[in-house]
């Protein structure tokens, strides 16, 4: 796509600033993930002001009855009981004893009705705040967060996903925001692919190659700069920064005692890595925990999965609070839907988008709040029904983004969030 950049346009100035920043970075003198150009004091202020988003994606459909909205001693309640939390009056499932002690940092929305029971469609609407449409694609929350919250001078990618498996790589989830904001996946929490310089190439040779590349690109861009050439250049520079700052993605650099606290299993490591990334200025981190699609033996599997989830997540919340990062970090624990109140013949629960829950915390989220209610046995929403659109607005507002605003995409105004909805205002501080 050829874009008619004009000298002095906002895009030109932005690109030039980044371009110059990358040239400086090319000398090897990188100070931090926030970029070389910021002064030390400004960088510190930026770090304090920078908002971040942490999403825990409970893949498959976490049962709200075995987590945030238990219904013990009812026909739908199952064998688990409810336990009190650190917030008087709030009870959650006994499978989450550690998180129960962190409830003062968190909030619950118990009245979600997305009317969607499909994995793919449910995941889409929960991560984009919109229903899928054949007319086009919408950016995932990570891309939106990276676009709206990342410092312009940030040299690290703003949208990171930590997945339980896979080899990692780049995704195509930024839609019209552009590939710069697309996620980079860290398969099983490993550093980004291909960020280690091959042994056959010395550091000197690598520097020389990149200096030559920039000189040739500079000359080309003087006359034939397009959005595509900018994208190519940005990708190369970002890749170079990833290589240079590879240690940011290396969770083994965290203290051994923290590895013990989070648990020496995959999800524990991934939560610890999330903390590391957020501390180093990554704007958006999503950690996926799998799998909650418990059509069979729901209770056995939630015992196992939440047994693995409880302590690392609780530790992460506690650490963010202790490190003064909670006010600037939005936490969202979501799924593509909940699970049926009805217990099927296999002791399982099936897909259920009708009356379910998410857990939020940090940023401008009211601590210890509970929004909405389901009825006695969880079969329908009783009060304050909300859905994905309301939630997406709320996420944005919680990190200081005007969710009623818009992106300027090639001269078109595209709303940041679905204008048919608004935020859950009573959930915001």
């Amino acid at each position, binding site marked *: 796509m050829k874009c008619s950049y004009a000298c002095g346009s906002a895009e030109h100035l932005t690109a030039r600033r980044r371009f110059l920043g990358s040239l400086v970075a090319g000398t090897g003198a990188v100070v931090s993930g926030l970029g070389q150009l910021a002064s030390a004091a400004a960088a510190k202020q930026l770090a304090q002001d920078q908002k971040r988003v942490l999403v825990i994606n409970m893949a498959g459909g976490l049962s709200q009855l075995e987590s945030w909205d238990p219904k013990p001693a009812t026909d739908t309640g199952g064998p688990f009981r409810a336990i009190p939390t650190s917030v008087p009056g709030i009870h959650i499932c006994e499978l989450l004893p550690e998180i129960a002690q962190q409830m003062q940092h968190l909030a619950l929305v118990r009245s979600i009705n997305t009317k969607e029971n499909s994995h793919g469609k449910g995941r889409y609407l929960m991560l984009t705040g919109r229903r899928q449409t054949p007319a086009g694609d919408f950016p995932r929350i990570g891309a939106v967060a990276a676009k709206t919250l990342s410092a312009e001078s940030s040299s690290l990618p703003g949208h990171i996903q930590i997945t339980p498996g896979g080899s990692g790589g780049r995704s195509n989830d930024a839609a019209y925001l552009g590939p710069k904001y697309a996620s980079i996946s860290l398969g099983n929490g490993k550093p980004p692919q291909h960020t280690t310089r091959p042994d056959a190439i010395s550091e000197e040779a690598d520097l020389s190659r990149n200096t030559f590349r920039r000189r040739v690109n500079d000359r080309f861009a003087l006359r034939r700069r397009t959005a595509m050439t900018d994208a190519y250049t940005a990708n190369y520079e970002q890749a170079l920064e990833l290589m240079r700052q590879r240690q940011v993605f290396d969770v083994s650099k965290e203290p051994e005692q923290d590895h013990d606290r989070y648990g020496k299993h995959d999800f524990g490591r991934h939560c610890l890595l999330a903390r590391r990334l957020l501390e180093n200025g990554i704007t958006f981190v999503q950690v996926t925990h799998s799998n909650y699609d418990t059509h069979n033996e729901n209770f056995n599997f939630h015992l196992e999965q939440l047994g693995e989830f409880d302590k690392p997540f609780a530790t992460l919340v506690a650490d963010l609070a202790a490190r003064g990062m909670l006010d600037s970090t939005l936490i969202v624990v979501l799924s593509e839907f909940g699970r049926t109140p009805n217990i099927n013949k*296999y002791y399982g629960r099936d897909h259920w988008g009708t009356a379910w829950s998410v857990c939020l915390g940090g940023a401008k989220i009211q601590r210890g709040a509970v929004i909405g209610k389901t009825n006695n046995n969880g079969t329908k929403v009783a009060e304050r029904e909300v859905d994905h659109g309301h939630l997406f607005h709320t996420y944005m507002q919680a990190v200081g983004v005007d969710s009623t605003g818009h992106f300027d995409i090639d001269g078109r105004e595209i709303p940041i969030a679905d204008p048919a909805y608004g935020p859950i205002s009573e959930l915001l501080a």
Partner: protein
Amino acid sequence: MQDQQTEQANLKADPKQAHVTTQWKYDSPLIACRFDPQARYVFASAQDNSVQRWDLAEGHRVAFRAHDSWVRTIAFSPDGEQVITGGCDGRLIWWPTAAENPEPVRTVDAHQGWIRTASTSPDATLLATGGNDQLVKVWNVADGTLAAEMSGHEKDVFSVLFHDDGKRLLSGDLAGQVHQWEIESGKRERTFDAKQLYTYNGGQRVDFGGVRTLAMSRDGRYLACGGLHKAPNPLGAVHEPLVLLYEWDSQKLVQSLVAEGLKGVICGAVFHAEEFLCAASGGSSGGFLLFWKADQPKDFHRLKLPNLVRDLDMHPDAVQLATTHYDRHLRISRMTAKQEG
């Protein structure tokens, strides 16, 4: 299962004649079931946290309510006058078996988390339990005191069974390990490796299967470990029932008992004095009673039950079987020819 003293019945059991003779419906799906040793009642636990008692002669039903979670185990005192229930609330509760308005006579906080399994010694003076805390505990039935505690399982304990000598105990876990313990010393004597009954599904990231039930042959020659295998989709209930048959003395796996064409899990098994194994399988194929001989891998007979089955127990007459079902029914089947009229 195996710890009941089965009497020699006048009637000879013929599995090929097995048929459902009685069914009683309750208000909630049912879970576990047991006949009382005096053959007056059958007990069944339900998803409403209660235990229900049916009078076998008249069908009259009485509710036992005190657990605040599901009950998974039911056992009896030596004279059968007390019934002991074990729940997902981690509690053992003693009740008067025959009371019309039963109230707990003793409550013991037995395990951290669920009690999944229980077995009484041949003389019923000891009760063994196993649970989600990965512990095996032995209790004095008379007063509810702890007699022994065994640790060593690395996953939840799914099944326990007293050896007929009353001095040894078996316990099976999610990982397919079956430990044999000497009760007096609490020491582990040996382990049967039944890991064929365990699956880790890397795609779904779940541990699945386990030793769901244990049974010993009357002559002490065989140990049967029941569960499932061939589970490509644990979360979607795609798996097949399997019983592993071990030679007791040598620990050699002598037979893998399968049920061709069925999807399900073995949820209860009992050896009959006439040298066949009877097991219940419940799953996406529905509910079945399966019958095997030790020398053949395939079942020699199967009875399809009206609904998915969740537990099995054998009557002291060794002819009748009780099963609990998702459709809220308790069913009695008889291994004899249908009576006319």
